């Protein structure tokens, strides 16, 4: 295996993506991602000197509209989907780790 990505890099990328993996998952994922990135590298065979990037294939450009509120006033229905809510607000755990001394 070419080792294009190692276990530490996989862990670093997982951190960026707000994901965590067990050791067993890392064992499985690391060689798999390495193989897929190897497949990505076949793109180096394509000559792209002077080629523009394509980020969008829409035929619409710079569409403007008035800034008018639409489809609002549904906070009760929206809050029904929140994992935890009280008095019109979404509840989340304390931001500061309670296990730490302050």
């Amino acid at each position, binding site marked *: 295996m070419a080792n294009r*990505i190692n276990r530490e890099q*996989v862990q670093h*990328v*997982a951190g*960026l*993506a*707000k*994901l*965590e*993996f067990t050791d067993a998952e890392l064992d499985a*994922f690391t060689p*798999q*991602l390495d*193989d*897929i*990135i190897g*497949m*990505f*590298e*076949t*793109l*180096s*065979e*394509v000559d*792209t000197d002077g*080629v*523009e*990037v*394509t*980020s*969008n*294939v*829409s*035929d*619409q450009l710079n*569409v403007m*509209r008035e800034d008018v509120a639409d*489809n609002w006033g*549904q906070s009760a*229905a*929206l809050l*029904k*989907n*929140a*994992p*935890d809510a009280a008095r019109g607000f*979404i509840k*989340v*755990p*304390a*931001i*500061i*780790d*309670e*296990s730490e001394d302050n």
Partner: protein
Amino acid sequence: MNYFKQDLASLHADLVAKKISAKELTQATFDNIKATDPKIDAFLTLNEDAALKQADAIDAQGIAADQPLAGIPVALKDNLVTKDLKTTAASKILENFNPVYDATAVSKLANAQMVTIGKTNLDEFAMGGSTENSAFKTTKNAWDQTKVPGGSSGGSAAAVASGQVPVALGSDTGGSIRQPAAFNGIVGIKPTYGRVSRWGLIAFGSSLDQIGPMTRSVKDNATILSAIAGHDDHDLTSSTQAVPDFAADLNDATSVKGLRIGLPKEFLAEGVDDGVKAAILAAADTYRKLGATVDEVSLPHNKYGVAAYYIIGSSEASSNLQRFDGIRYGYRADDVKNLEDVYVKSRSEGFGEEVKRRIMLGTFSLSAGFYDAYFLKAAKVRTVIINDFKAVLKDHDFIMGPVAPTTAFGIGDEIKDPITMYMNDVLTIPVNLAGLPGLSLPAGFSNNLPVGMQLIGRPFDESTLYKAGYAFEQNTDFHLQLPTLGGQN
């Protein structure tokens, strides 16, 4: 009630003539689904109470001759949000999610008084080609229940192919309408990028995603595309191009006379099964007999599409799926000490393996030090692939080829091997990268499983694809052959 013998026009005629009421049709649809779905597992959620109520209201009003879709059942892929009807994207992270609005394509069908029957299974967040990545169930192929239905719109495809509904909507980011349509012997279109509003489609790859209809015939497909297409203020990538009445022009079985068709040699190259190749070559002969010219052409960079797509699609997905953080809706992990834990544990427990793999690939491709080599390179190769298509479509009316290199594979056969699974999309992915319309329709059988043919057109020229598809259908009988679900047909 199954929909093997009836198209939208005949259902509409029966409803107008009151041979059947909308309520009876709806009830018969649910009865049939309850009898057949234990075998097929196409549906995640049934909308029975609301659908019957809606059908009652439609009957009370009466169905006029100028309401061609009123009272007709439709199934929706479960990544289209539906107001007050659970929408999961086949993910644990959205297991209990009830949207507060309808997707634009859904509300357009509702305004035409179609009756939403339920939500169909998919690969989680539409990531996969077999529907095996659903967090909830594995849908089976309508023709052989040991085979996958394809994916990611596998539930919609199997529901239409098994006669459960006459129409379903799917979504297609790299082949997710066309490949399951091919595997199940039905018709599916990935419209031109921008033809249909993506508002309310749970985003995967925003520069690639399109919603499209899946039906038993080309004409039905054309009818539904006209109903869901058009500009939408809520999706500023949706086009302001006029939407033709696509079905109105479908009455000439010889309309391909004089057209020039390109058959790329890469589409019949290594990796394409002999049975698939034979069906496509026979289809080329059918078109020649109808007076079209079929030329061998080349899309020299086609094989790089898969790599470019898995970089671009995964990068867009990694960004789009940041919104699933356990805060405002969806799954939140229990065992958390702080806010960072909410994010990391909710996402790690809520997403399935393939979704995590794509988020990782995308995050990697966009990360510092790798962005130029991967994301930017892929975005340039995308331009090269687009130029290949432009060159061929300059002097050809459309391109024909297979949808997938093989017929439906066995459940469990490929799910442990991501690269093999990714390569199945080698013939559909480039069409999404280029934003072109792609129509999949039945073109024969190989080992008793359907083979799909793909017609690829110029931007916003779905009309030519439908005309060519209709002509093929009128001169063949593949679309009339039916799966036997335990012999009850």
